[in-house]
Structures are given as structure tokens and as C-alpha cells.
């Protein structure tokens, strides 16, 4: 059973500021969905390997060479707050 306190904790992990109404709603909905998830417990997976990706892909390497890249201007064009060639953010420490 997930409590509103659990929801608070998860919201901080997920970096989501939630309103009181949202917390209430997500507490209920997460409990509902997790109840459906219990069905997986019936499944015996003792000797089963997990599958994260379906294709037998290994690490893909390339030569360490400078290729085409976007310009500094393009990289900063969508930035909400810019100071010369930096992304500006509110104070961190």
C-alpha cells in the first residue's frame, strides 16, 4: 500500500513538484495500478534470464574522430536563459 508520504518521496526522486490534489490522485492511481501488477507474482521466473534489449547488440564503437557537429549558436538557440556562451541557472550552492 502506497501512502501519500511514499508519493512525496517518489516525487522528489522524480523532481516533480506536485499539488496537494495531484498527490491525492497519484496515491490512489498508483495503488490501483500496482494492484494490477500483482498478477506478475503468479509467474514463476526462477530460472529465467531478464531481457533488457531484444537484439543481440554489443557495444558499438567508432573511430575517435571529430565529425560534423552543431554550432555553438545552434546548441544554445533553445536555451531558456543564456549568458554569453553559457546556460544560466538559479543558484546551486
Amino acid at each position, binding site marked *: 500500500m502506497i501512502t501519500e508520504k511514499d508519493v512525496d518521496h517518489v516525487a522528489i526522486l522524480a523532481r516533480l513538484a506536485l499539488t496537494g490534489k495531484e498527490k491525492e490522485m497519484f496515491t490512489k492511481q498508483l495503488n490501483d495500478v500496482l494492484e494490477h501488477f500483482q498478477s506478475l507474482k503468479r509467474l514463476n521466473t526462477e530460472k*529465467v534470464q531478464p531481457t533488457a534489449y531484444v537484439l543481440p*547488440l554489443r557495444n558499438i564503437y567508432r573511430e575517435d574522430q571529430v565529425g560534423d557537429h552543431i554550432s555553438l549558436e545552434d546548441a544554445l538557440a533553445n536555451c531558456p536563459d543564456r549568458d554569453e556562451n553559457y546556460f544560466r541557472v538559479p543558484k546551486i550552492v
Partner: protein
Amino acid sequence: MHLYQLTAHELHELLINKELSAEELNNYIFDRIEAVDDQIRSYITLTKESALERARVVDKQIQAGAKIAPLAGIPVAIKDNICTKGVRTTASSKMLSNFIPPYSATVVEKLEAAGVTIAGKTNLDEFAMGSSTENSAFFTTKNPWDTERVPGGSSGGSAAAVCAGAAVCALGSDTGGSIRQPASFCGVVGLKPTYGLVSRYGLIALASSLDHIGPFTRDVTDCALILEAISGNDPKDSTSASYKTPDFFASLINDVRGLKIGVPEEYMAAGIAPEVRLAIEQAMSLFESLGAVVEYTTLPHTEYAVVTYQIIGSAEASSSLARYDGVRYGFRAPDAEDVMDMFMKTRGQGFGPEVKRRIMLGTYVLSAECYDDYYLKALKARTLIKQDFDRAFEKYDVLLSPTSPTPAFRFGEKAVDPFHMYLSDICTASSNLAGIPGISLPCGFVDRMPVGLQLMGRYFDEGTLLRAAYTFEQNTGYHQEFPEI
């Protein structure tokens, strides 16, 4: 027959015979958009000027006597979670409502290299999370067959645009059924390729081990043409397979004699509307009468597919969407006290309810206390689901099922209970978990609403899927039905 009802391959004939210029065709499609899109609302952004400019280039090539590519001058719509350089790409989210990508997705570059004109960017459920476009932060797209009903989702805008003649073809993305389900609801052809066949570079990620890009078209021939144009290895996508693209066009053979078709009984079980079951049984009989061997089979772990998909999908989404922090691009909430406050407020205000719900769920199942019970357990269930398919494909060339248990539902009908909405993924989510290809094509109508037939195939065996789909289409004709709009 109207011009907007023609397929790309039919329009190509008109273009090369100089019965129609590419500029005329593009103007015509934009007129059609103007006429119907107030009702359908499939597009978020139109790119008329650049489309006409590219059309004129194609016309010059035709005038000069050059041989043009099969898709040259054909107007194609792009789902708005696929990046287009210099053209706003929103993922239907407030978070990206002003985002202008500095590069194009590989599929967009490939389509442009094939000569298409891009008509615009289509609506979706926010960050592709949904089955109806009701989760778009901007507006809801309507089903052209009945504007009281949803077009499906998440690629509802792309499906509705092709259906209504507001684009000849379109691209969508499919993480749990988001191409095939709207194709089924709108009565068009939609294909999710094998994982790795089509590059996802430039697709705004939802769940990277499940995301695919694929075409929406009015018939199977166009589907093969678009697939041919967008598939192939891409060094920019490390999950892209080193697989030589076969000639999909050569698979368009009207012959299924000897083809072995399995029908998973779990997909025909509880929850399926009786009329949908009837349409699928008729499709089975047709394939049989055309010389295919059709039998019921079993995919025993199907009952776990939706839950497994929900756990893995939300876990990966919570990770993929961690990048939206208000620093480098996208929305940033004003008046933050410090950087943590900025992250929290930006994400709290920038994401809609469904996105927050899935991020919360995904973060929860990945948290230290729950990882083994939910996430790892789901990865193991995924192995069992994949093995079901491996076994089935030892015996069958193709698996046949409905695409969705019901035709398009009404607005608001499923929004009340999120889990109920998730159940509309029941026939499609397994193939995302396994990475196998699937196609949806129209196979009948219930009260003038289209029903979709899904065919699933072996890894990288899109050829057989296209052959079976083409044969079905050539022997039925449902693809020639159009909504009265």
C-alpha cells in the same frame, strides 16, 4: 474518386506522365487540409512554404526528363515527436512548445533524400503516452469516420491525416501499439518494423527498448515504399541493426499459398467485441480460401504482456524524460529559488497528468525497494513473452489477430480509469516487448467504423508480412473505403 484519395504510387504515375505537377499536388493537399483540418485537427504545425519549394524542385527534374524517385513530390506528415530541423517539434507537450530542433531525425533526412515534401507535424498524446490523443497538451484529434470518436493514439494525428486525405502518407512512432492501433481505428495501413530496422535518431524518446518508427499509408504498396525509404543501418543510432534492407517492393505478391498462419487464441479471448471477432474470423477464412494454412495457436504469457509493458515502459520513460530539466531547451518555470526548485517546478508545470503518472510509476518501480519485485520481474516476463513468439514462429510464418479488441471508442469513454485505457494495448504491446514486426490493415467495418487486422512476423521478415497484407488487400478492397468528410 478524388485526388486526395489516391495513393503515393498512383500519384507517382500522374506525376511522371505530367498529368499533374508536384506543385499542384502539394497545393491541392494544403487546400484539403484547410477544408477538413478544422474538424479533424490532425496537424500542430504546417510547413507549406518549404513543401511547395521542394515540390518545384521535383517539377524541374520532371521537366528536365530526369527519372524521379517513387516518393518524389509526395506530401508526407510527420508525427510531432520526430525532430525536423528548423521546424518546431513539440511532442504535444507544454515542455517543448517552443522547441526548434537543430537537426532532423534520420528518418526525416531519408524521406527528404527520397524526394518527399513534408506537409507538417501531427498531433499525438503528450510524449506519445496514450491511446487516443486525449493526452495532447494542445488539442484532441478527431476520427474522420466519426468526429465523436477518438482517432486512436498515440500517433492519432498521423493516422487521421492519412485517413482524411490531409496527407498522402505519414510517419508515426509505436512503443506499445501507437502506430497500429490508430491505423486500425482510422482504417489505414500502419506498420511497426522489427526493432533495429529503422533508426530512431531524432525521435523524442519515450522508452528506448520499445520505441519504433514506422509508416501510415492508404495501402500496402505505399507502406512498402515508405519502409524501403526509411530503413537501414544508422551509425547515429547504436541500437540500429546492421541489416541490409531488402527490396520490400518485391514482396508485394498476391499469393499466400502454403503460408502458415497462426492465430493466438489469447488475442481472440475475453474483451474482444463480437463484431471484431467476426471480422477477424472472416479474414482467417479468406486466407484459407487463398491457399494459406490457418490454425489456432497459443502465446501462453499474453496475459502478462500489458503489465510487463506498463512496468518496463514507465521505468524507461522516467529515465528518458529526466532530461527535461529547464536548462538547455524547453520550458522553464519562472521564479525558482534555487536549481532544485527550478527542476521541480519546471517538471511539475511542464508535464501533463499522464506523463507525471508514468514518471511517478516508473520512478517507483526502479526505486531500490521495488526494483527486483517489479522491474527485474518484468524483464524476466519479457523473456517468456519473447520465447512464446520464438516458439510460434518455428511453426508459423505469420501470426494473425485483431489490432485492437474494439473499434474506435468515444471521447472520454476510457479516460476515467487509466488502467482500462492501457488495456487497449493488449493485442499490440507484446510485439514491442519482443521486437517483432507488426502491420495493421483494414479488414471490415462495424457501424461504419473500421476494424483492423494485425499480422505479426519473424524478426526482419517484413517481406512476408507485406506479402500476406498485400494479398489480403488485393482480395478485399477495404482500403478503397473513405470517410465522408
